[in-house]
């Protein structure tokens, strides 16, 4: 309802021409759009996305975003898979649990408290975050620590834009991202799989990097709940779990945060968790990955790239570090 009430400032669906980089993208988008009406699974996924705005109008959930040169030209994973195959343990540990159970997440009203080592700590309302900086579409590779990957057209702006507004002090060495933890909305919190709330973290220079995206949407629409609505972080050169979803608090801190997976299994999930084909997970190799929807049944997995293919942009952040130890 809130979104609907301010829809006057929002562009209408008819005003928007999504920027499509190439024909593949277009056909995938078309397929997804056509599928929404007819395919039951995709239709359900879209149902969640459409209601995410609270208005239930397709127009109210669209986001206008300009294209980015930081986007990959690889073919995006289908909307159906991006929104139907998720790890979001707050809604259960099965891949289809988030799409099935995230409907109970209330995304309005929503605010994000930004605090800690900053000159101007404050609480941002989600409506303000949506318009804080120009939205960009960033088509990023997403590599899950489990050995699969996707290509996802995210919508957001650099996290650095938010940093500028709060002015981190000299003591701010790390950033901590805290996900909502409300058992009433998140049935997965009943399980003791992780210590809640879910906490992730970045070094301040990683957080300020141009690739680090404060993300509000995907596929040209506001984020579906199962993908971390209404606001999340996306750090494309790290394993997916580093990108916290449904953020309620962002803290600038001096000491390295104790992140959820690092706390649960330190020998398996390090603080850095950069995508690295040379450092195996204790239970499987990270040398290869299966691209969801492409590397099908009778197809070899593809090689995983250092820093998920973003080495050119981010390798300098880790100059001199032994990435086997700082895994």
């Amino acid at each position, binding site marked *: 309802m809130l979104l609907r009430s301010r829809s006057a400032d929002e562009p209408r669906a008819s005003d928007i021409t999504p920027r499509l980089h190439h024909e593949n993208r277009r056909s995938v988008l078309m397929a997804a759009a056509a599928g929404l009406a007819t395919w039951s699974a995709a239709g359900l996924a879209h149902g969640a996305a459409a209601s995410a705005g609270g208005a239930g109008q397709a127009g109210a959930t669209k986001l206008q975003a300009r294209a980015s040169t930081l986007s990959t030209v690889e073919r995006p994973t289908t909307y159906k898979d991006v929104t139907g195959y998720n790890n979001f343990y707050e809604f259960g540990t099965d*891949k289809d649990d988030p799409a099935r159970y995230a409907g109970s997440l209330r995304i309005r009203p929503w605010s994000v408290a930004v605090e800690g080592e900053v000159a101007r700590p404050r609480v941002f309302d989600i409506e303000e975050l949506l318009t804080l900086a120009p939205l960009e579409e960033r088509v990023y590779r997403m590599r899950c620590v489990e050995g699969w990957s996707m290509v996802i057209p995210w919508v957001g702006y650099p996290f650095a834009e938010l940093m500028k507004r709060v002015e981190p002090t000299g003591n701010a060495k790390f950033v901590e991202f805290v996900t909502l933890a409300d058992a009433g909305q998140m049935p997965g919190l009943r399980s003791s*799989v992780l210590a809640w709330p879910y906490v992730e973290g970045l070094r301040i220079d990683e957080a300020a990097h141009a690739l680090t995206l404060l993300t509000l949407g995907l596929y040209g629409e506001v984020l579906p709940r199962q993908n971390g609505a209404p606001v999340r972080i996306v750090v494309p050169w790290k394993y997916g779990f580093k990108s916290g979803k449904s953020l309620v608090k962002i803290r600038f801190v001096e000491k390295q945060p104790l992140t959820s997976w690092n706390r649960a*299994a330190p020998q398996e999930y390090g603080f850095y968790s950069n995508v690295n084909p040379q450092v195996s997970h204790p*239970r499987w190799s990270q040398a290869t990955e*299966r691209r969801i929807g492409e590397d*099908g049944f009778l197809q070899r997995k593809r090689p995983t790239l250092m820093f998920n293919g973003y080495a050119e942009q981010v390798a300098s952040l880790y100059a001199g570090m032994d990435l086997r130890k700082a895994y």
Partner: protein
Amino acid sequence: MAAIPTPRPGSGRLAQPSRRALAWIRAAVFAAALVPLLRLVALGYADALSANPVEFVTRSTGTWTLVMLCITLSVTPLRRLLGWPWLLRLRRMLGLFAFFYAVLHFVTWLWLDHWFDLPAMVVDIVERPFVTVGFTAFVLLLPLAATSTQAMMRRLGHRWQELHRLVYAIAALGVLHFWWHKAGKNDVSEPLVYAVIVAGLLAFRLVWHLRHRLPAAGSAGQPPL
């Protein structure tokens, strides 16, 4: 078996079904045991094996291997508790279905997951305890499947039963394989179910052995149920 008097009609149809009824039961069990495979085939045709079909098939065949192992291991407790000796006639088939799903699980790993990349598979087996354990369980199943025939039973005599006690270790290793696979994700609720079932089925044998075999060592027969 021949010495057991035939129960009067009506009093023990379940305890001793007719030859014809047993044939039907065996056919029904055979068909039921194929359902998990047919389901995978049907889902495959419908393009409904999730976004990650290889993972789906790996998990499904692994799960059904464990289920079949548990069902196979429950034959002896059930036949003793219910007094249905004919259940033994299903055990070979059930055990071979456990082996069948284990082969599918193994082939999924070998082919769809690793694409016959031998060095990668060796690393997997050597470096990753949960794979080591699963692979060991699979290797141990091979002699059991190979000696499952009537002829091999006769040839091996009492050693057959000793050999086939390996199934206890195989079931325990299978549960451990699943447990360690899930442990890193801190999610052992499902493996716990299998651990409890396998532990229960093995505990039954131990308790039965202690109560019936040891005191009965000097006496002629087993106490009635």
